[in-house]
């Protein structure tokens, strides 16, 4: 399954990109994150939340979208 992963704010400095497409066989977000932690070891030290379908979701959620988004703490306003 090909998934687009998007990064925002300070996370883009860890990954060096704003988005990437990863071919990924697993079904749960936490498994995807484990893979990303191997690819980007510094990501593990960052505070972030995950959204899919424009909603924040717990890490144990099944992937149900073609797009997974990693969001650092919000700092609008």
């Amino acid at each position: 399954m090909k998934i687009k992963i998007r990064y925002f704010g300070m996370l883009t400095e860890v990954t060096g990109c704003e988005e990437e497409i990863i071919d990924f066989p697993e079904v749960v977000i936490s498994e995807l994150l484990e893979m990303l932690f191997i690819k980007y070891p510094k990501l593990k030290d960052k505070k972030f939340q995950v959204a899919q379908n424009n909603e924040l979701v717990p890490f144990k959620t099944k992937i149900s979208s073609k797009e997974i988004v990693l969001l650092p703490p919000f700092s609008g306003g």
Partner: protein
Amino acid sequence: MSDNRTKSVFKEGAISSVFIGESIAKHQTKTSIGAHNIFLGQVRADVIDNKIIKAIEYTAHEEMANTKFHEIREAAFEKYELTCMHIYHSLGVVNAGEICLFVFVSSPRRKVVFKALEFIVEAIKEKVPVFGKEIFEDNSHQWKVNS
């Protein structure tokens, strides 16, 4: 009366005082309104380790942000008796002293506008995926943290 619900919230660059004045003027035909309350967020030139912040560059997960702005708007209209509500947030670079957030609520009576405005501003800070990159005068940066 909850008009303008679908207008876009994000504006490229700073929000001008003229734009704010014109928004106020547009409400003078709505003669059921007795009270307006306006919140403006302005970029501070904070000094951190002897370096001065000269600007904040805002980015956002726009689709999710618009969903959240819509939910906040619906919740506020549900909770409070408001005649209208407008929210504008900057994207891109906003210099110190310039305005990056403009929230405008109006109601027949005053007591409700104070509560509604604070509810909306706090919800924006908490729920909307916007990210501020604080840029120092030497062009180094740090990521803004909301308190």
